[in-house]
Structure formats: structure tokens, C-alpha cells
């Protein structure tokens, strides 16, 4: 089983977002592997542990993305590919094209991706790549079984579970609940430095800049309105209830 995992480095979920000249400020920010992509990586590693094969992680991003790839290698991935997007104002259209070009010519049975990135949240990359590669896809899976060249996946639908069968090669996107991603062990982090990391540009993929140019434009960015400060009510249970009722009566409209 050769597997390719599409991943992205995103802001740490704990980070505060700050804007500067209509752009999101990145200095001093902690970056992590997009949490949904972590499920994808973990699933690939689990399948490899059972069935053998190789796991390659691919990202399109700036230079700093290398640390996310290294973390994936430390978790256990075998190889990494970093496609430099310096100077490209890519959107999902362009990024998917780059990824598909990078995958073409590689041997794979399964492609795994996160169901969406927690920064842009579009959820388009996985489906677009599957379309470009003309392979079947199952999105937002919570369970995956691979046997005899066939995949059986489960996904949550409106409180029920949908079971889908598909042939390989296949692309799946991971939903929360698929697994519990492992922590990279410290010795594996050290070993990850020696694992192969391939650096590519779009020129290496025989793509022209205008082929991957963004189809959308961001016209404005703004932060959501601040919520009112949280107030703690103190005292014993009885006092707290009384105080809460007072607040609801006097301050909340429509009571």
C-alpha cells in the first residue's frame, strides 16, 4: 500500500489572529499541522503498520512548512515533498492543480487528506485533487477498512452512519473521530531529520504561473465582532441562582 497524504501547516488553534494591512500577521505565531490532516497522517501510518508500504506527505506552502513535514516524518511518514508557493497567490483551484501535478507519475493506492483546513476551511482541496486525478473520493470519513484492493469507509450523515465501498486508488478526507493521532516520539523526531524531503517548484512540475493563478480574490478581511466580557457569578448555589435570575431580568432583553 503506497499512500500519499495531503497536508497543510496552519496557525495553532490557540493563536490569536491579528490583521495588518488587510493581511493576517504571522510573526511570532506558532504553527501546527492542520488537525484534520493529522487524522489523515495517523490513518496512513496505521494502514502501513498493518499492510506495509510507504507513506509520503505532500504540502504546498512557504518555507516554514518544512517543520510541519518534519513533524509528520517524526510521526512515522517515510518521505516528504514540499512544493514552494512563494509568490503565488494560490487559492484552492491553483493549489489542487499543483498537488495533482505533483502526484501524477507517483505510485499510489490511497490518497488521504484532512476534511478541511482550520484556517481557510474550504474543504475543497481533497475533492478537487480527486477530480483532477480522476479517481473516486469519499469525504469526511470516520472509519476506514482496506482489504483486497477495496476500501470500506464510514461517514456520519445526519445522526446516521453511511457505509461506502470504493475501489482503489481512492482519495479520502478525514473527519474528527477517525482516530487518535500519535505524538511523535523524541527519538523519532531526531531520526526524522535524516528522512528524505524533496523540494519542488511549480517549474519542476512543468506548470506555468498563470495555470495555477487564483480564480478568486480576497477583497476584505475583518475580525468577528467581540463578544461581551464573561462575568463570573460568585457565592453559594442559592445566591448564584438568585443573582443569575436578577441579571436575566434586568439586563437581558425579552425576559
Amino acid at each position, binding site marked *: 500500500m503506497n499512500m500519499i497524504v495531503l497536508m497543510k501547516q496552519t496557525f495553532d488553534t490557540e493563536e490569536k489572529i491579528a490583521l495588518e494591512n488587510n493581511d493576517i500577521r504571522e510573526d511570532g505565531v*506558532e504553527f501546527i499541522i492542520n488537525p484534520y490532516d493529522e487524522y489523515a497522517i495517523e490513518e496512513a501510518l496505521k494502514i502501513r503498520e498493518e499492510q506495509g508500504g510507504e507513506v509520503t506527505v505532500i504540502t504546498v506552502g512557504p518555507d516554514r512548512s518544512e*517543520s510541519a513535514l*518534519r*513533524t509528520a516524518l*517524526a510521526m512515522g511518514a517515510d518521505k516528504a515533498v514540499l512544493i514552494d508557493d512563494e509568490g503565488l497567490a494560490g487559492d484552492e483551484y491553483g493549489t489542487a492543480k499543483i498537488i495533482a501535478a505533483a502526484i501524477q507519475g507517483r505510485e499510489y493506492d490511497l490518497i488521504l487528506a484532512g476534511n478541511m483546513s482550520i484556517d481557510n476551511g474550504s474543504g475543497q482541496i481533497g475533492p478537487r485533487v480527486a477530480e483532477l486525478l480522476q479517481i473516486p473520493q469519499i469525504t469526511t470519513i470516520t472509519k476506514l477498512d482496506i482489504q483486497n484492493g477495496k476500501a470500506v469507509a464510514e461517514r456520519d450523515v445526519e445522526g446516521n452512519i453511511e457505509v461506502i465501498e470504493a475501489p482503489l486508488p481512492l482519495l479520502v478526507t478525514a473527519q474528527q473521530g477517525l482516530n487518535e493521532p*500519535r*505524538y*511523535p*516520539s*523524541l*527519538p*523519532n*523526531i*531526531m531520526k526524522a*531529520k535524516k528522512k528524505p524531503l524533496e523540494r519542488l517548484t511549480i517549474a519542476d512540475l512543468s506548470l506555468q504561473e498563470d495555470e495555477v493563478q487564483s480564480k478568486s480574490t480576497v477583497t476584505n478581511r475583518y475580525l468577528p465582532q467581540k463578544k461581551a*466580557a*464573561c*462575568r*463570573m457569578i460568585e457565592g453559594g448555589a442559592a445566591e448564584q441562582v438568585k443573582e443569575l435570575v436578577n441579571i436575566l431580568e434586568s439586563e437581558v432583553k425579552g425576559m
Partner: protein
Amino acid sequence: MDFRFSEDIEILRKAVREFVQTEVEKVAMEIEENDEIPEHIVEMSKEMGLFGLSIPEEYGGLGLDMVGKCAIYEELGKTHNGFTTLIGAHTGIGSVGIVELGTEEQKRKYLPKMATGEWIGAFALTEPSAGSNAANLKTTAVKKGDRYIINGSKHYITNAVCGQIFTVMAVTDPSKGAKGITSFIVEKDFPGFKVGAVERKMGLRGSHSAELFFDDMEVPVENVLGEEGNGYVNALKILANGRAGLAARNLGSCEKLLEHCMDYALQRVQFGKPIFEQQAVQHMLAEISMEIEVLRAMTYRTAWMTDQGMRVVKEAAIAKLYGSEVYNRVADLAVQIHGGIGYMRDYPIERYYRDARITKIYEGTSQIQKNIIAAELKREFSK
């Protein structure tokens, strides 16, 4: 001058931080309540390789230098100190003796299993009559053919209950005082070895200290650690080696307390505004911040000097002394900033306050550190 960590260390540190903050912090209150570190946390720590911090790579460990170790200790200090102590005592005094003084056979026999955490290490020096006066040991070791027969007892031994490998100091020649002490590698399963009562402590719950009893315990001669008669010097070396690490653990705990204090001060409203807006509170926070930054500088400079092979006897003593004093001052201020809630057991502040207290006592009291500093001063100025 470059005050940045290498990229490797940053990545390791981040991994440990994430593990500590998501997994260990989640069970911190449970550890406190049950006086027990949940088994899955110990297992995950083993899988992460935390038990191999100070063990060289060729024996299955990480082979980190002192700066690297301190960076990890700092992260480990940011959670329940009982957990920190389990790892700290093992990777510090519990194993560095074998790393630094062990023969090739000893290292090959013990270190790989200590690196994975399968065997947990402990350091057994303290006795009822030998605390700060560490040379006043009563435990004896008498050579008999190819073994030593050890009799006596130890107390306050950290990791005694979960420990498998003990570095034990015993008197081999009572006529020579401090120079008549020898260190031994003792396995829990040696006949005549017994773990006694678990001590009931003020803090560090989840980390268990106990008495050890040696009743005609037989130790093969190949388990002598270092040379016969060098045990006291060895013990001092092992303790000295750990001092910057202790400072780093304290640094981490102080940083965690500052985080708690800032969160609380910014959201707790009194007199119509967050208490952070009160200058009296701001000054306490500024003081905490200052203490932390000074401790950080001291800790990593000492660690860096250690890695350069420089003499750090004075610096390590200062870092240990300053780190534990700062931790106590910061914990006290943290309780003050939190007020009533800081005194409550439903909140972690009082736990740090109790856990801080031992740092001025264990691995050489603050007063012993001052003796060491003064002795170094005399040495420097008597040239």
C-alpha cells in the same frame, strides 16, 4: 552570543510541550486527588522517549546536551510536579551516575532499558543520620569474595516504589570517612533488598518516596559504580550534574504560574475592573516576570557552560539555589494574586505552592548551595 535554541531543540521542546499541556495537564487534578500518576500517562511518556532524555543515543536514549535537557525539563515543569519528579529523578540523579561513571558493561546492561523507561532509576544517598551531612552514612558494604554484603537503610528515596535500578551509596571503609564510601548499582530484585513504608509528603503527590532496607543484600563486585572509595565524590558529581536541570524545572513551574496569574488577573473583576488594572497586582506580576527572566538567563547560561566543558560548580549551585528560591517567591505571589481561590484545592495554585517548598530542600538545601558557592569563591580568590 546567541540566545536561541537550535531548531532541533525547538522541535523536541514543542512536542513535549504539546504532550504535557494536552495529556498531563488534563489529569493533573486526578494525580493530586489519587496520589497516583495514571498508567496511560506513564506509558505515553515512555513511548515519547521522555525516560531517555539523558541517556546517550548509542544506548537508546536521546543523548541531549545540557541545554537540550533543560529545554525539556522546562516544559516538564509546566505541569504537575509529581509527574515532573518521576521523569526528573529518573533522567537526573537516577541514571546520570551510570551514564557518567559506568563501565561499558554496566552501560550496556542498564541504560537501554532505562532509556525506554522499562527500568526506572533512583538515587539512594540520604539516611536518617545523613541528610545535608551526606558523608555520615551508616549503611555498610563489606567485600566477601566476588560480592559485597550491604546492610543498612535509606529514607526519602524518590522513585523507590516504581524504581528498578538504584544508585546506592554505602561505607566500605569506616576509617576513611568521606573517602571510605562506595557507590553501587543495585537492582530491586537483589536478595536482601526491601522497599519500606511510603513517606507521606506535603506535596509532590503521585511521586512516591520511601525507605529502603538492605538486609545482607548481596551485590556483585561488577556492580561497583566508579572506583571503590569514590562514592562520596561520585554522589556529589551526580548531584552537581542535575542542578541546572532542577533550575529548568522550577523555571517551567514559574512560567505556568505566571500564565495562571495573567489569565486570572485579566478576567477577575473587582472594584469594577479586572484586577490586572490595579497597580499593586501589576507590580506583583512584573516581579514574577522579572524573576522568571533572570532565572531563565541563569539556567541556560549554566547549561551552556556545562556543554562547553567549563567548570560550573558555582553557577550550578547558584542556579539551583536561585531557581528554588524564585519558585517559592513566585508561588507565594501567585497565591496572593489569586486570593481565596489560590488557597483552594479545586484550583492548581496551592498545589504549586506546596510543591515549591521541597525544591529548597532536596538535592542539596539552599544553605548547602551557599556553602558550595562560598567554597568556590574562596577557591577563585585564593589564587
